[in-house]
């Protein structure tokens, strides 16, 4: 069994005068697919930005691949997909990927592989700003796959994709995990939860649950993740 790819303890992030993360702690096992679920505004993106080392005013400990988050040695070992597709609209898919490959120092032959992985081969030479939203976010995902990073942190990568494509991407995520990568995938769509090895449920900057989908359902006494989420919130309110 691989050791933890990500380890967080007492994570607090302040933005403005508001605590966006309020003492979050968890471990992500290497070679797994972990879902980060919770409503919009619960702190998912802030948590992700803290893990990839882009968030300011972070207190607590975050260890990523055995190093403190944001360590220069981690650059290039983490594939990060922001919520908005972070690719250049005025370049083609291939031009974008060739550029990112050059920055990473990855051979440009890798470009073809990742284009295929996200099923964009037919649009490889199209300008990104002429693609649909879903195609654009797949181009952005492809850039994160370059060089086969050990950790992939994906902020809502499946928003707006059709069900077939979503299924294909989740299959891809599991293939990557089977090959040894660790994935943290955020989503506000609860039905994606069952596709994860493990779930982190967040609400209001706190972690509600850190469990496998099966155990989560079992402990909430339901077979619906949405319902389990509600039960956990009610239990928490009751405990106060």
């Amino acid at each position, binding site marked *: 069994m691989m050791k933890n790819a990500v380890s967080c303890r007492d994570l607090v992030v302040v*933005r*403005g005068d508001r605590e966006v993360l309020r003492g979050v702690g968890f471990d992500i096992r290497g070679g797994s697919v972990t879902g980060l679920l919770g409503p919009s505004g619960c702190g998912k993106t802030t948590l992700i*930005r803290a893990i*990839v*080392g*882009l*968030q*300011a*005013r*972070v207190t607590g400990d975050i260890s990523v691949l055995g190093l403190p988050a*944001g360590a220069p040695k*981690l*650059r*290039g070992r*983490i594939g*990060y997909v*922001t*919520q*908005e*597709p*972070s*690719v*250049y*609209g*005025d*370049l083609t898919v291939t*031009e974008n990927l060739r*550029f*990112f490959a*050059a*920055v*990473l*120092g990855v051979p440009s032959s890798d470009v073809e592989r990742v284009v295929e992985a996200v099923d964009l081969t037919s649009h490889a030479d199209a*300008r990104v700003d002429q693609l649909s939203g879903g195609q654009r976010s797949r181009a952005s995902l492809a*850039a*994160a796959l370059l060089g086969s990073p050990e950790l992939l942190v994906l902020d809502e990568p499946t928003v707006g994709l059709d069900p077939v494509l979503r299924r294909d991407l989740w299959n891809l995520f599991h293939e990557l995990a089977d090959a040894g990568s660790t994935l943290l995938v955020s989503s506000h769509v609860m039905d994606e939860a069952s596709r994860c090895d493990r779930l982190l449920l967040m609400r209001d900057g706190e972690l509600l649950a850190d469990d496998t989908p099966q155990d989560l359902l079992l402990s909430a006494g339901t077979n619906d993740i949405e319902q389990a989420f509600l039960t956990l919130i009610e239990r928490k309110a009751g405990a106060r």
Partner: protein
Amino acid sequence: MTPRVTFAVAARVLAQLRRDHRTVAMLIVLPALLVSLMWWMFTDSPMVFDRVGGPLLAVFPSIIMFVVTSVATLRERSSGTLSRLFTMPMGKLDFLLGYALAFALIAVVQALAVVSIALYLLDLDIQGAAWQLGVVAVLDGVLGTALGLFASAFAATEFQAVQMMPAVMIPQILLCGLLVPRDQLPTVLHAVSDVLPLSYAVDAVLGVAKGNGFTTGTGGDTLVVLGFILAALGLGAATLRRRTA
């Protein structure tokens, strides 16, 4: 700093510019058009054009480069590409130098256009060599680029970035010797103009116009401009934040 990364950024910026015909036209044609406009305004008093024509070769390229580059890093910030790049082995200086390199190439073309039009079409009268005027004009364009990138690292939004132009450039235009020769400014303003980069850009052009070569006086001003370029890029890299709130 990694040359591979710097050159990758420069090549990418140029590839983006190649698609953006309007910006390229503005960068290359506009300084020449503006200088021609000034020439036209002073057709009846060619002495005036000979006096201001030189400084304009410094002022117009640097302003135009400043405006274009001051929003450059902001565009990358709002599109999320800067976030992505900062999770990659991308030095902050790689990023700014890549932009500077791409725009320096544009500055060469820009200087070729504006200097040849000024000298051969508008008969701007200078004592020095044309190539020296060209070199100084390129450096002045690169100066505008470097100052723009520096301002860009400071601004939080594109809205703030465009406000940098009047705040940073207009005072320099007023004090650089274009309107009033610097030695005729009140003492305090003269001292202020002594620390502003554009003053040296204009001094360098005036030096070449007077026939002073790089070895006889103009070289010093040119080196100061080069120093400002390097300082602006260095400070810009130091100001750019990987971690943001």
